[in-house]
């Protein structure tokens, strides 16, 4: 079993992308006006990093043993056996290593974006995480 796809939410939602880029530029401008170029660069970098899953394409691979997410040259992988809970949303599913909801879910878990393949992804997730 292997399911592979690339999710790029920013391309699918140009309106939200324009809004996000506008907010980042505004924050950088404010930082530049109050703290200078270094602060502006820092603000921009932090904001870009915080919404990287939305802005940049991510390649997901679901196979028998693990789930992998590769973005900007960095790969994160978790074995299915390490994952204990999933929480499905409209456009994403959170795969968490914690049995109960935790504030560490976003850090230690994997957020998987769908790309018009929600049914296939959820079928595998339900099969692997019981």
């Amino acid at each position: 079993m292997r399911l592979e796809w690339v999710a790029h939410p920013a391309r699918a939602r140009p309106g939200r992308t324009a809004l996000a880029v506008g907010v980042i530029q505004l924050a950088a401008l404010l930082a530049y006006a109050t703290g200078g170029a270094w602060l502006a660069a820092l603000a921009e970098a932090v904001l870009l990093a915080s919404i990287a899953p939305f802005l940049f394409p991510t390649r997901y691979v679901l196979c028998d043993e693990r789930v992998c997410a590769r973005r900007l040259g960095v790969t994160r992988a978790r074995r299915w056996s390490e994952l204990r809970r999933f929480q499905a949303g409209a456009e994403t599913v959170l795969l968490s290593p914690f049995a109960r909801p935790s504030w560490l879910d976003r850090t230690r878990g994997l957020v998987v974006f769908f790309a018009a393949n929600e049914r296939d992804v959820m079928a595998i997730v339900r099969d692997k995480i019981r």
Partner: protein
Amino acid sequence: MSEALTPEEDELLAKIATRVVELRMDAPAIFLLESVKPLNFVGSQAMLFFQPIVSAIFPAALYQRLRALLEKRQSIEALIRKIEAAR
């Protein structure tokens, strides 16, 4: 630095993880370990620097095992995963 963990090191990590969970410090420990993960090798070198002083107080063998373990890049991630599994 990127060599695999030995069974003894794996066992040591499991013991640490179990103790952390027993103390109910799992969430703060995971948060802290995630924060310092990129600095594991620097941490091991700091441990090496302080070894003569620390060895006077704590068992030197355990200290050296921990330092050698910390030199391996994947050790912190392995510890975090063991804490998650022990929760």
